[in-house]
Structures are given as C-alpha cells and as structure tokens.
C-alpha cells in the first residue's frame, strides 16, 4: 500500500477520537510513525476542511481541538431519528391527580395524608403546567398552603362533562371489599378467621 496522505491520516484520527482532537495530539500520534511538523499538520487540516466543504459534515475547531460535526442545517433531519418514545406518567403523578380530582379542594398536605408519602414539587408543578390543576385558594393554617382543584381542561382531556361523571369511589374498590360491604361482617369473619 502506498503511504496515505497526511490529511487522510488526520481524517482517520479525528473520526476515531471520542473527543475533539488537539493539534498537539495529532502531531504526537503522527510522529510516532513518520516525521511531521506542526505546520504540515495545520496545512493538512485545511485541505481536509476543504474536502468536507460539501456533504452533511463539517470539520470545526472547538476549544479542545478539532472534531467533525453534522451541519446545523441537518439537525432537523437528525431529530427525526431521536423521537422519544412516548413516556408514561408515573404512578405517583396519576395518584396525585386522582386524589385532587376526588378530594378537591385539597392541600398538598392532605394529598400526602391520603397517599401516605410526600408529593414531589415536580409533580405539582407538572400538574399546574399541564393546566389540569389550579390553585383555588390558600388554607388559613400556618404556612398557608395552596388549595388545589382540577380545571375544566382536565375534564376536557378526560372527556368528562363534570366531576360527577367520575365513578363513585365505592365502585372503584376491589370486589372483595365490595362483597364484604354487601354481605356484612359474616363474610369478613369467614374469610379471615384469625382476625379478632
């Protein structure tokens, strides 16, 4: 094989490197195999830059050295690749929203009482940002916590005409619980004989 020209060697080095490659690093790497001057490397870089004048890439110099990057003009196309999978709301998020829907107007402390765990500020902020929840007042207790309620937008999103279209909580309960309620304590004692 004929000796590759310097600009092609530099092309290989810059592409193979994870981080931008400094002029010094290029000179060092090339010197290990052939004599080279900084000036020659700099000239070869210019040739290389000229070679990448067209096409999707450009060779640019940043603080720590040279690197190839996709031209800004193609960023929009690239974005199509990275379409994020539709995320899902967390369980905590949905529970918080459900409690606000059923228990409104409600303070964060009350939501926490029901869930048994703290509600993150993040969740509250997202609910407010989405326009699903709004602050309808402040409770007159120390700290004056905000009182939350759902919005019309929330109803629209879930295709409800009003909150009364939410199913009653009793219906949501598990069938066992429902059965116990319907058939009284008898069923309960039968089901759990150990309980006093």
């Amino acid at each position, binding site marked *: 094989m004929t000796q590759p020209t310097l600009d092609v060697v530099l092309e290989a080095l810059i*592409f193979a490197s994870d981080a931008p490659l400094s002029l010094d690093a290029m000179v060092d790497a090339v010197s290990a195999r052939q004599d080279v001057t900084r000036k020659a490397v700099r000239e070869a870089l210019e040739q290389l830059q000229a070679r990448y004048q067209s096409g999707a890439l450009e060779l640019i110099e940043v603080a720590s050295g040279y*690197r190839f990057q996709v031209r800004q003009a193609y960023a929009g196309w690239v*974005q199509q690749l990275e379409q994020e999978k539709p995320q899902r709301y967390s369980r905590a998020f949905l529970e918080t*929203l459900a409690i606000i829907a*059923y228990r409104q107007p409600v303070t964060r402390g009350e939501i926490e009482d029901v869930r048994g765990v703290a509600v993150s500020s993040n969740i509250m902020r997202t609910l407010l940002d989405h326009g699903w929840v709004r602050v309808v007042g402040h409770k007159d207790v120390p700290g004056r916590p905000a009182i939350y309620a759902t919005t019309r937008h929330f109803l629209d999103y879930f295709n409800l005409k009003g909150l*009364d279209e939410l199913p009653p909580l009793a219906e949501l309960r598990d069938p066992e619980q429902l059965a116990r309620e319907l058939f009284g304590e008898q069923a309960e004692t039968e089901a759990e004989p150990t309980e006093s």
Partner: protein
Amino acid sequence: MADVQTEQVIARIGEEPVREVPQDLYIPPDALEVFLETFEGPLDLLLYLIRKQNVDILAVDVSAVTEQYMEYIRVMEAMRFELAAEYLVMAATLAEIKSRFLLPRRQEAEEEEDDPRAELIRRLLEYERYKKAAEDLDALPRLERDLHTAQVSVPKLPREKPRPQVSFAELLDAMRGVLKRAELHGHHHVEKEKLSTRERMSEVLERLSRDKFVPFVTLFRVEEGRLGVVVTFLAVLELVKESMIELIQNEPFSPIHVRVRGENHDATDA
C-alpha cells in the same frame, strides 16, 4: 517417588523414548500452575501432545499419546499439583483405552458405540474444530482493536418533549391503588362528600380568591334548582369546617358575607 518418576521414560515421541521433561515443556514446579493454565483442559493438552508428534489426529497413535498424557498426569501428581477433575477423568478414560489394548479382543468390534477410543477421537476432532474457530474469530477485524466507528458531534436543537398520553382508565386505576392503601391504613376519610359538593367547594373557593369578600346569597344560583342550592350550601359548610373560608356577620340579621380565611390579615402572600 518424584525422583523415580522423572528418571524413567516419561514420554515417547514417535519411537524416541523421552527421559526428561522436554525443554520446551519443562516448567519449574512453582510455575506448574501456569503451565496447566496454558492448556484449556485435557482435550487441549492431548491435542498439544498429538501436534508434538506432528501427525494428523486421524493417524495418531492413540496409545502413544495416552502414554504421554498419563506421564504428564503422574509428573503433576508427583509435584503435588492439584489437578482439575477434568484431567483426572480424562486420565481414567485413557487408562481404560489402554487396558483394552492389553486384553485379548474379539476380531469383531463388539460395540463400536461405547468404544472409548472412538468417543475420544470424536471429542478431540470436535474440540479441534472449535479451537480453530476461536482462532478464526479472534482474527476477524473487530471494533476497538481494528476498526473504529466514526464519531461526530450533533448540534442540539431545542425541542419540546412530547407529553405522555394518559387514559381515564389509568387515572381510575391510580385512584383504586390509593383507596386500597388508604383502607390498609384505616383511613376512611377519602370518601366523605359527594363529588358534586367537592366540585362546588372548588368553585366557591375560586370565586372567593377572585372577589375576596362576597355576600353569602350571591353564591347561590336559583336557576340550579333546589339540588343545586343544597350542594352549594353543603359546600360552604364543608369549607367552613375545613377552615378554608369564614362567614362574617357584623350584627344580627345583617347580610352574611363570605371570605377566604386569613385573606384580610395577610399582606405578604401572593
């Protein structure tokens, strides 16, 4: 015992008896472990011995190789080297093969299938294939060693994250979870009022946060009918109970006003 062993013929290469551990194989006792580690097991060691003879496996004199292998094992044992079980199993197999040679055998091969020699040859050939395949695999150009993928940076565009979709069923399911836990903890206050009351509570609160101080009667809308009025009334009572609003009457029989509790003596809160 070690002395006796090493002075005897320890191997045979072709017809040449070998009385010393060959130079290229000789490993000082303290490095014996390293020696054994250079082999990937008894099959590998056998293959090595066969190659030392520079013959094809097919043409190999199994009994000669057996001899050599057994000598190795003996030397290793004499040096009190702890042999891996596989080497000893192989030694047993080879011993069996050897014993068959010594016994008079019928001309017809009695049972080819469980002939340990046939099985050994088969295993050696099979192992040799994969040993070669491993070498071929190692010779393939591979990333990081021979090949490097081209790294480029990609300019970032500001972008909005798509919002997750959520169904009504999922919301209800979440509430079901809350209820289950609440029941476990003995909280029964989750379900107190009818939802219409709670919705109305929110509406009243919102109105009050806008208008601050409203006559009680303006909260009611006659067009809603009796039920609507009752709902509003219950909502106001509940709000009072929960310390969210207060009712104000300056003197008996004067109009009742409603305001959010604490609003008037609070200047700092937004």
